[in-house]
């Protein structure tokens, strides 16, 4: 399931973009080291294959509903993890642009969720060890089922974590997990059977493909792949730590748990070591005036002027330190908010349609001028 921009906070979105871009850079460096030129058209066309295959529906036995292919594991098995990750990233990029699946900020998360786990965990740690000693159709089936199961569960769990860290959704952790994981278990079983079927088909009709490509892609030995996974885990933990500091300006998710421990949404002032460092980094890098600057402004206004109205209007954006008390929005301010919103919308539409009308007039003008301009 694709993550959506609207459910993300910028911190989470940018963190996962950083992770994804880092992985793309790493993969392309790895591929450049022993570049097989043949792989470039192969990657491009197999990416297009995933696209085309996703558009073919089929009925899922027993349910009558229809599903379509994800395809990440087929790519990984044929192309190897590095090339497959790049192909997956490119497929998701085009989906985000042309089909608006998720959105551009969420693209980082989506590539992470659907690319990292099959390519760097499902394949090297599960599929490969099972299939390594002699391939037969049963082994392929078991291996792909298990690998896809793990990959999808991790991906679904990441969606849950990303949503929670962003703090835009009210879904409690437990409910969300119970919502996501079983759905992806079902998806995983279907996907596993299809993947195994396709791999067996390829094995029957082009057996050299599974071997020859496995050789030319010349993956570094097993241990190195483990190291990569470890590195990813470390990166994930570190970024998770940073994310938690950026997480949200609202007292929920992590801040909510901090609030429970300390009774206040903020940590006590005397921070030392890494915490202080992170905070300093945050303050310096917070170019989006959501977290620090905005809050200070609110406090100042409250302290100095004590203008009830202004404070409550701001309170709608950043709940003040007394998190349990809800921002008391007076009827007056919300009415002015609605009035202003309607007027703003009107203004936007006027501008939009105005330009359109002017353009149309321009189009009806003698053609010569527009040709000259072009």
């Amino acid at each position, binding site marked *: 399931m694709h993550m959506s921009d609207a459910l993300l906070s910028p911190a989470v979105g940018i963190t996962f973009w950083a992770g994804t871009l880092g992985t793309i850079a790493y993969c392309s460096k790895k591929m*450049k080291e022993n570049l097989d030129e043949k792989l470039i058209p192969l990657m491009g*066309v197999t990416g*297009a294959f995933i696209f085309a295959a996703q558009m073919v529906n089929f009925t899922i036995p027993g349910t009558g509903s229809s599903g379509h292919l994800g395809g990440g594991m087929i790519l990984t098995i044929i192309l190897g993890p590095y090339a497959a990750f790049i192909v997956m990233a490119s497929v998701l990029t085009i989906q985000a642009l042309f089909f608006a699946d998720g959105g551009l900020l969420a693209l980082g998360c989506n590539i992470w969720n659907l690319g990292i786990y099959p390519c760097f965990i499902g394949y090297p740690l599960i599929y490969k060890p099972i299939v390594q000693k002699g391939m037969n159709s049963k082994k392929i089936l078991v291996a792909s089922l298990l690998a896809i199961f793990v990959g999808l569960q991790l991906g679904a769990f990441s969606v849950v974590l990303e949503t929670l860290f962003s703090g835009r959704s*009210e*879904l409690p952790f437990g409910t969300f997990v119970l919502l996501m994981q079983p759905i992806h278990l079902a998806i995983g079983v279907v996907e596993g059977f299809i993947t195994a079927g396709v791999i067996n088909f390829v094995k029957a009709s082009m057996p050299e493909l599974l071997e020859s490509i496995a050789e030319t892609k010349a993956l570094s030995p097993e241990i190195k792949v483990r190291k990569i996974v470890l590195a990813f885990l470390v990166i994930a933990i570190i970024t998770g730590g940073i994310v938690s500091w950026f997480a949200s300006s609202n007292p929920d998710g992590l801040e909510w748990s901090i609030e429970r421990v300390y009774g206040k949404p903020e940590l006590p002032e005397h921070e030392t070591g890494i915490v202080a460092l992170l905070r300093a980094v945050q303050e310096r890098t917070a170019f*989006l005036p959501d977290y620090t600057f905005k809050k200070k402004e609110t406090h100042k206004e409250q302290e100095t002027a004590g203008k009830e109205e202004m404070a409550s209007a701001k309170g709608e954006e950043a709940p003040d330190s007394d998190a349990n008390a809800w921002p008391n929005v007076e009827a007056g301010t919300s009415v002015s908010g609605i009035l202003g919103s309607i*007027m703003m919308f009107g203004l936007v539409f006027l501008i939009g349609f105005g330009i359109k009308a002017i353009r149309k007039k321009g189009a009806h003008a003698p053609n010569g001028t527009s040709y000259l301009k072009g």
Partner: protein
Amino acid sequence: MDFDKEYFNLGLLDTLSYKDTVIHRLDPRTKVIATFAFIVTVVSFPKYEIAGLIPFFLFPALIFSLGDIPVWFILKKVLVVSVFAVFIGIFNPLFDTRVMVNLFGIPVSGGWVSFFSILLKFFLTICSALLLISTTSFPGICHALRKLGIPEIFISQLLFLYRYIFVLIEETLRMVRARDLRSFGKRGQGMSIFINLIGTLFVKTIERAERIYHAMLSRGFSGTIHHIKRDHLRKADFACLSVTGVFLILFRTYDLVNLIGRQAERMF
């Protein structure tokens, strides 16, 4: 059948991106950076924000009108993909039932406010992504990304993928049509047929890749795809970027909607 429709949409977006308007003429880099900045700014609003998001509708409105993009076509696409955001967001009213605002005597819970905020953000972000691709050709975006430092292999991958999507989709379209002709109701639409279909498609794909590779070799392919059109940043690009930046910061830091609303109240 929605399969053909998807394909048609892909083609239409591609056609739109080759129009010649003020927006289309901007350097792809400008548009990529501006779009990303826009999305990050929109998403940076906290959970209960509604009023602050309204001014941001100015950006899509400007691009729709200046770029001469059909509004309904894009809106329909936005609606189609809204499933996930709505699916997750709809839980907010269930879990967050504390009354937050009293609207003309009707109590509105925080959950509904945050749900509405999610919907607004969803619309703005998805719209901007679709507007980016309908005002910038895909190869243009790829070269912009290359110049912004994305690895070469990924860029050639994107270009290749885009080139062959259309070819393969046409091939798939034929195969699906053949399957549909030979199936009766749900018979023939099952998984085993699907697997064989996909398997065949995959083998065909691999064979095609081999032919493409040989054709490329005979034309002197050396690992990278070259680009003839030289993009360069002009004055218009710098102007566009700085104006966008100023307005984004302005809209993000000042509560314009409430200011206007209060002025209006005073007037009436």
